């Protein structure tokens, strides 16, 4: 469902097709990152420098994965020190969203795990830690820290450029992938599966 009443408090740019679930977005006119509160839009600073790189798909592109057809409406780039990876927020025809992580041909599609269903850790577990989720054994195969360095489009949660969080990736024995993100006072878990970059059909935005 689109919201047609919002304008950028910094430059007056009007947002004609903003998703109701969108919590934050960047103004394509002035580059200000905006947070949508209950009553008004709140500027959150600059949306960062998104360097041009060859990408499997990008903002506003539509992808088909065989089982899902999603359009990318948000893009966050995270820096991990030696390089970066991209997280895309994409929605289907009903407005349901998913995160798609793109990291040098490793593509993962994930959905948020409800708080009461999440793995037990409140902080980042150690590498090699094991747990079971919905009957599938998982092992933590990667731990690191990422910092948001650029934001484009619409996102379902509040995020500032420069904000950092710890993350873990855990691989399931049956091919699943669970990721956890941890920051001061909060955490989020996501479950999903790998996508084959050669099998993703991409419709480029006009």
């Amino acid at each position, binding site marked *: 469902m689109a919201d047609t009443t919002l304008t950028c408090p910094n430059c007056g740019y009007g947002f004609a097709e903003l998703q109701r679930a969108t919590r934050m977005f960047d103004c394509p006119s002035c580059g200000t990152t905006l947070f949508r509160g209950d009553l008004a839009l709140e500027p959150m600073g600059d949306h960062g420098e998104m*360097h041009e*790189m*060859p*990408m*499997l798909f990008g903002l506003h592109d539509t992808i088909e994965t065989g089982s899902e057809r999603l359009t990318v409406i948000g893009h966050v780039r995270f820096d*991990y020190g*030696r*390089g*970066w*990876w*991209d997280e895309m927020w994409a929605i289907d025809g009903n407005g349901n969203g998913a995160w798609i992580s793109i*990291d*040098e*041909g*490793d*593509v993962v599609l994930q959905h948020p795990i409800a708080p009461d269903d999440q793995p037990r850790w409140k902080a980042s577990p150690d590498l090699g830690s094991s747990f079971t989720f919905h009957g599938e054994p998982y092992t933590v195969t990667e731990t690191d820290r990422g910092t948001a360095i650029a934001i484009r489009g619409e996102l379902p949660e509040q995020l500032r450029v420069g904000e950092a969080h710890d993350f873990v990736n855990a691989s399931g024995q*049956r*091919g699943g992938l669970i990721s956890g993100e941890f920051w001061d006072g909060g955490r989020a878990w996501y479950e999903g*599966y*790998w*996508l*084959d*970059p*050669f*099998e993703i059909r991409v419709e480029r935005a006009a």
Partner: protein
Amino acid sequence: MTGAAGLSSINCTQCGAGLSVLGGGRVLSHICGYCGAVLDAQDNYKILTSIGKRDNPYSPVKIGMTLSVDGAEFTVIGTLGMVERYRGQVWRWTEHQLFSATHGYAWLSYEEGNFVFTRKLRRMPNPSWITLKTVNNADTPPRAWYGRKYYRYYETVEKELDFIEGEFNWVPELGAKTTSVTLMSSDAMLSYSQTPTEREVERSTLLDRAATLADLGIDPNAIPGAKHHPLTPFRPFAHEGFVRTTLLGFAAASLLLAMTFAVIGGSTVLRTDRLAVDRLPQSIPFELSNTAQLVRVDLQSDVNNAYALFSTEITGPDGQPLVAAARATQFYTGVEGGERWREGSRNARYLFRAEAPGVHEITLDLEEAESWRGSHVPVREVTLRIREGQPTYFWMVIATVGFILGAGALVARRAVHEKRRWMGSDWTDE
């Protein structure tokens, strides 16, 4: 993770040589091609070990070359020399690590003039893992299902690392061994590969040689020709499926016509009662009106456990001999080992073409007869029947055979190709 922008070369921390940085953020090691230092790409190119200067294995593919595979742009970032030893035989080939900013890491193998593209599968086949033990215990070649295709067991290879240079998204070690169980479909191979620390399933496809050479910028005349590869695709003739179906359709039609012609009897112009053989020879007139088609002469005798040879002579309306033919009827029955048997036939026939309509005459005689049993009378009676307008199915049978052979040749060509593809398989039914 995507590598930091702007880093395009480093100096080897052991020998100082300039080294191009072509891979992405997931590159873990960089082996100097000048001094053999193994550098940690994730830790300021710290020296992990050194393998010394080694001779490059032959490959026309060089680090820094680029190629496009299924629309993805790849750069060659590393070279591995591989060796397989089995019962005194040695096979060598090279594998090149590829990097694409959009599609990640893959492999380009060069073996006996062929280029094979290999990439790790994230979506697992079914079954997701096959071991050498699985193969050894199987009664039939193990199979796997992936991407709507079946893969059948092809071979098991234990390959050893013999040379390393360039960038890799792992840390290769000289002498490290990998065991791969390989299955093959019509156009790809699945390899279940295991090292002491890792399991992977990879999918390999044969690249078009000419297009790959052009993409890499390699002169085709400067390298040896390619040997046959198991993934060499079958190249059907133009419209081969249509041609094969059409040939089989024609074969069916001509067979149907042949069967129809065999059943159609024409019109009877002479049918005698039973003629006593002791009253032969006899001459019997008959009239023919159809000279466009064949005339069929049928003899039927009551020969039993005996042999009888009849002669016929037919004269035309002008009284001149037209046909002279002898036909034997012989029929035997008996019991042997408690089972009845029979062989031969009491019937005989031949065809001829009439030259002119009108009254013809046939003279029938018994030339000789002999019984299997000494005192038995070999033959007592014979009947004669002549039909005109007799179609012949001979050419229809020939056509049927020709069409079937044509379709069979197309099927056989494909079968020979398949047999050649699987010749290198190490599967045995024992």
